[in-house]
């Protein structure tokens, strides 16, 4: 699979190529790893209806991962390079996406999808006018699926927050997830990140996206009577971040076991390529 439009990869110098690739890796890896975790809820969600709804979201995110990885193929990588034979320490997803779910902790799934989807909406907006055409061209398709995700998360926040036990569990999920959610706005590398913005591959810097995100999620969570673990003046410092931020390739042990799991069949069968069923995912 490769993008159909003439890819302007050739027009990029080495620094620019690196910047576009970092941007695509953080997008693709977030979606892929988030989806891996969401699929853990399949056949385990509280009701058949919620099972269908979350698995639908997982499939959307997986489809988005495929769209972003497809653009990385324009740089000469194939799917094994991007996933099944890739060094797990080069994945650039936020550590929030790799956190395992405790069995039955539906409040984690709801808070996590909420925090993630608000961030995703903002970053997609900041890609609408990307100077890199192939990225710009794929934003609309993804956005058209995202509205429902946020609607799903908010409807569940509503329902759980109106129950004492649900409220308590939501608070625990917020306490646990919030520091990891902040890694969504961390750079893969400060120099490369500066190039992403200078070249307008993404038109907003991460700290502005992060501020917008905070001004969105904090009042919303507070409106449900939830405390958000950040300082009064709302400034975020490195002290608020978890030890592993993911973006720089530094991950938790849970990532290693997840990576081993999803590459297991590929390794066991001694595969050297990954089957493609759909020629052009865009």
């Amino acid at each position: 699979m490769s993008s159909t439009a003439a890819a302007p990869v050739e027009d990029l110098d080495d620094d620019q190529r690196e910047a576009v690739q970092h941007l695509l890796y953080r997008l693709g890896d977030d979606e892929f790893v988030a989806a891996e975790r969401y699929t853990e809820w399949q056949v385990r969600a509280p009701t058949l209806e919620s099972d269908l709804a979350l698995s639908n979201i997982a499939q959307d995110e997986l489809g988005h991962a495929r769209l972003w990885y497809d653009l990385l193929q324009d740089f000469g990588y194939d799917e094994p390079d991007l996933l099944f034979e890739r060094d797990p320490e080069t994945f650039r997803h936020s550590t929030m996406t790799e956190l395992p779910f405790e069995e039955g902790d539906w409040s984690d799934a709801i808070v996590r999808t909420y925090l993630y989807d608000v961030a995703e909406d903002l970053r997609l907006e900041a890609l609408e006018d990307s100077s890199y055409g192939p990225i710009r061209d794929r934003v609309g398709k993804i956005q058209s699926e995202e509205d429902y995700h946020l609607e799903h998360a908010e409807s569940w926040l509503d329902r759980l927050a109106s129950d004492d036990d649900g409220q308590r569990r939501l608070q625990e999920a917020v306490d646990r997830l919030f520091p990891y959610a902040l890694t969504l706005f961390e750079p893969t590398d400060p120099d490369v990140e500066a190039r992403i913005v200078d070249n307008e591959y993404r038109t907003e810097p991460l700290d502005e996206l992060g501020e917008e995100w905070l001004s969105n999620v904090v009042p919303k969570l507070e409106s449900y009577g939830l405390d958000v673990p950040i300082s009064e003046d709302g400034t975020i410092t490195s002290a608020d971040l978890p030890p592993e931020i993911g973006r720089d390739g530094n991950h938790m042990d849970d990532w290693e076991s997840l990576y081993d799991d999803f590459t297991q069949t590929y390794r066991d069968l001694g595969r050297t390529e990954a089957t493609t069923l759909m020629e052009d995912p865009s």
Partner: protein
Amino acid sequence: MNIDEVKERAGPREFNPGDDLPEEYRKAATRMIQFHANSEIMGAYLERPFIRQSPSIDRKLAFSAKVQDEIGHGQFLYRAAESLGIKTREEMLDELANGKGKFLNCFHYPMENWAEIPMIAFFVDGAAMRRQATLKRTSWEPYAHAMDKICFEEGFHVKHGESIMRELATGSKKEQEMLQDAFDEWWPRIIQFFGPSDDKSTHHDFAAEVGLKTMTNDELRNAFLNQYLPKARKYNLEIPDEPRIRENDDGTFEIEEDDLDWDEFFTIAKNDYEPGVGQIEGRANAQEAVEWVRDAIEGDDQPTAGHTPTAAD
């Protein structure tokens, strides 16, 4: 309506929730549809780990979608069963969790590697297709209606299963060997999918008389073998020596029933077979872990959060 009238009127899609049906009919139909719905859920339970273990993104997407479809089929079938007025969906799901609910023999066995996938996703699903196609003419209209949708989606599942099998059958020597090993292990179970020969089946007579079942176990098995033996051969699978299968001139088959382990089959039918017990309990534990959510939303007038993409509507 008394039972004689039911037998007289019995035909495809003849009865619906507007009919006043005797309890005997409603119970028999509930048992059959509940079994079918449970099988969808337990099949999905068995296959779920392979969403993660799929060796490509496209396979992963197809697998996740398949598991989702099966939950949707379960949802649709429980609704068709509920409409008989004997049990609620919650009661049926509780029975599945506490080991009272019955389901297909093949879903009691563990599945450990990718080469086993076609055994379920091609052969068992293919066998289920044979059976389900005949249920489009079952007498309980909501059940027949569910079959229209389910058969449509199952067609895609079997195609995907065949694609995985083709890939293994034409892959490395190791892959071909793994596929043959899986086939040797699963083949007798797949033959038993249709249950014992008609003379040993306990529920068939009544279900046939009231139009719930339209074909016998043997007829279904014949139809399956006619279609799937050539397919197995096409993918270079060696058919195991046992159970012995005699092919008659008229295209029918006879199975040497003594070659099959019916003790195991009936242990499974009672939900007493060890790996199956673990799978039932595994699912029950997962359901119990989210009991608090169902409690939290109880009385909520919003049974489905947001827009639920129902695979089964």
